[in-house]
């Protein structure tokens, strides 16, 4: 059933968007497609509004930093509540220019998700109504989930490397 649904969805998407759907994969049965930032909103809109796809619910927006590829991938998770089908949509952006159009035009719920992704990864969502930090303090001058920044706080004094075999 999952295989058939995923197959139908892939056909539907490649029929509509052709070359713009760059790669299709199904890790653990979850259909994962990659597209580009110029069509991402049309892809999401199609997935939301098409009667066969009907992904009415935006589960999450997040990002992944790949320093070796000098890329930031923005990841959208959608859910079709009626058919109980999930899909994952990825867009790869260049590290130096992480701009992408906002999805708030489709789902109001995207507002805080995009603010979180901006806060942690520095992805700029163009057209977002209120793009400012949501979790971290305003004075933080980095986007801490980017891998060039250390996870640990430099002010910690009791964690000496010798105790941890480093």
């Amino acid at each position, binding site marked *: 059933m999952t295989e058939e649904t995923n197959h139908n969805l892939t056909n539907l998407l490649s029929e509509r968007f052709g070359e713009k759907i760059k790669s299709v994969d199904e890790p653990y049965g979850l259909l994962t497609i990659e597209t580009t930032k110029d069509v991402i909103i049309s892809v999401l809109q199609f997935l939301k509004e098409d009667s066969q796809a009907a992904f009415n619910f935006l589960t999450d927006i997040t990002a992944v930093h790949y320093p070796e590829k000098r890329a930031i991938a923005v990841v959208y998770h959608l859910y079709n509540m009626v058919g109980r089908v999930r899909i994952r949509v990825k867009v790869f952006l260049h590290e130096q220019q992480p701009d992408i159009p906002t999805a708030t035009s489709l789902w109001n719920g995207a507002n805080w998700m995009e603010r979180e992704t901006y806060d942690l990864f520095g992805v700029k969502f163009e057209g977002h109504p209120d793009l400012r930090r949501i979790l*971290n303090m305003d004075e933080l001058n980095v986007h801490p989930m980017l891998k060039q920044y250390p*996870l640990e706080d430099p002010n910690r004094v009791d964690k000496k490397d010798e105790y941890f075999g480093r």
Partner: protein
Amino acid sequence: MSDIKIVDAPAGIEGSGFFATSFDKVIGLARSHSLWPLPFATSCCGIEFMATMGSHYDFGRFGSERLSFSPRQADLLMVMGTIAKKMSPVLKQVYLQMAEPRWVMAVGACASSGGIFDTYSVLQGIDEIIPVDVYVPGCPPRPEAILDGFGKIQELVRNESGRRRDSPEYKEMLASYGIL
């Protein structure tokens, strides 16, 4: 009948119809048994504090039945739980609103040192922003440990000189935290 304990009078000179001692001792004695704590509870250590306030451990026995939820009326700031960096200006403001003399107790690993949250978003111990008198270790500490820490605070309060808060050392210490 329960055995009601009353604290002993401080050392002094006693005679027929008079008792003489120093203000420091009398004020210290009175203060130490009537501290009004402000519970600044942000996570699981706060749950342990609820147990400490409950009838089994009965924090009120030590003169702290009355919690103060306004910093302006509190003597003791009890910080219990993880303090995120975003929370730190709030905590500092609460401390600034307290009137002297004021004491601070860091309850649990997070308030004392950041605990397991060694990360960019968490304050690595509240002593980065405000001075702390007593640290209670534990993750979370048991109510007995919180009571023990409170006992240490009472000891400090009882033995504090009436002029400590005017001393240049104290002012210098506050200045090192950017508090004037």
